[in-house]
């Protein structure tokens, strides 16, 4: 077969059920392609809310992020898959793309929506932006 098999899979997490679904789907790919999994949680820094207790807010998010990453890593290790984990801060889409480029990922697996405040019934904003502008293939899990 040609070169297009997925050796490195990036799974952005946000703690929603959709991202868990995406993780499950990524596991299937690992079984089939013997690929590596990279997990990322991005702390969003771009919203200027809570200017006063910003530090506290970020601290809570950081704690939440590490918790989710550890949990996901545990579920992966139960299946015998080792994963690299990353905790980044900044704009969600930018950080995901940067990491995808840096680690030379072949596939990004995202849920179709996440923790966005409005309950949308179509594609979430982050998933949309990733699918629009990422340089590698994208799997949208629904």
């Amino acid at each position, binding site marked *: *077969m040609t070169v*297009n098999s997925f050796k490195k899979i990036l799974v952005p997490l946000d703690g929603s059920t959709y991202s868990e679904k995406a993780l499950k789907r990524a596991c*299937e*790919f690992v*079984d*089939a392609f013997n690929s590596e999994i990279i997990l990322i949680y991005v702390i969003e820094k771009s919203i200027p809310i809570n200017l006063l207790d910003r530090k506290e807010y970020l601290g809570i998010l950081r704690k939440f992020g590490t918790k989710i990453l550890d949990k996901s890593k545990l579920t992966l290790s139960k299946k015998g898959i080792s994963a690299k984990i990353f905790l980044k801060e900044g704009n969600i889409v930018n950080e995901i793309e940067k990491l995808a480029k840096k680690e030379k990922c072949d596939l990004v697996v995202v849920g179709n929506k996440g923790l966005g405040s409005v309950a949308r019934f179509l594609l979430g904003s982050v998933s949309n932006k990733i*699918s*629009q502008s990422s340089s590698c*293939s*994208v799997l949208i899990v629904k």
Partner: protein
Amino acid sequence: MAIKTKKILVPLDGSKNSLRGLDMAIHLARQSQGIVTALSVKTVPGIYAIHPLGFLDFNSMTEVKKLLADAKLRAAKKGIQLIGKAIAGDPGYDIARFANNSKNEIDLVVIGARGMGSAKEIFLGSVSNYVLHKSKKPVLVVK
């Protein structure tokens, strides 16, 4: 194999990107021993879609059929069964409708990032974008 994607839908329009999508779908189908369904939509400008004579445009339908035959050959070389479907209509809408139709039991849609549409954009093609938003099934965008 753990991949449960038994039926994979690949929209084809003859562009390089859609062929890449086809290759990827064949690759995935090999892992799961699945079936690839190729869907080729002939664009019919709005009014002809409801005009009875719109379907009499045999000339370009053969073009579509040839595309599907090529795809079939490509899949057969890799030992994958491919079912070709040719439809006349609006590409985005019909692909999404085909994918969502529970009768077809599609598990995954594999689509090229952009097809025949306009200039070489950096971004997603309009049809891919439409399918991405409207399909209720997982979508794999191949770049």
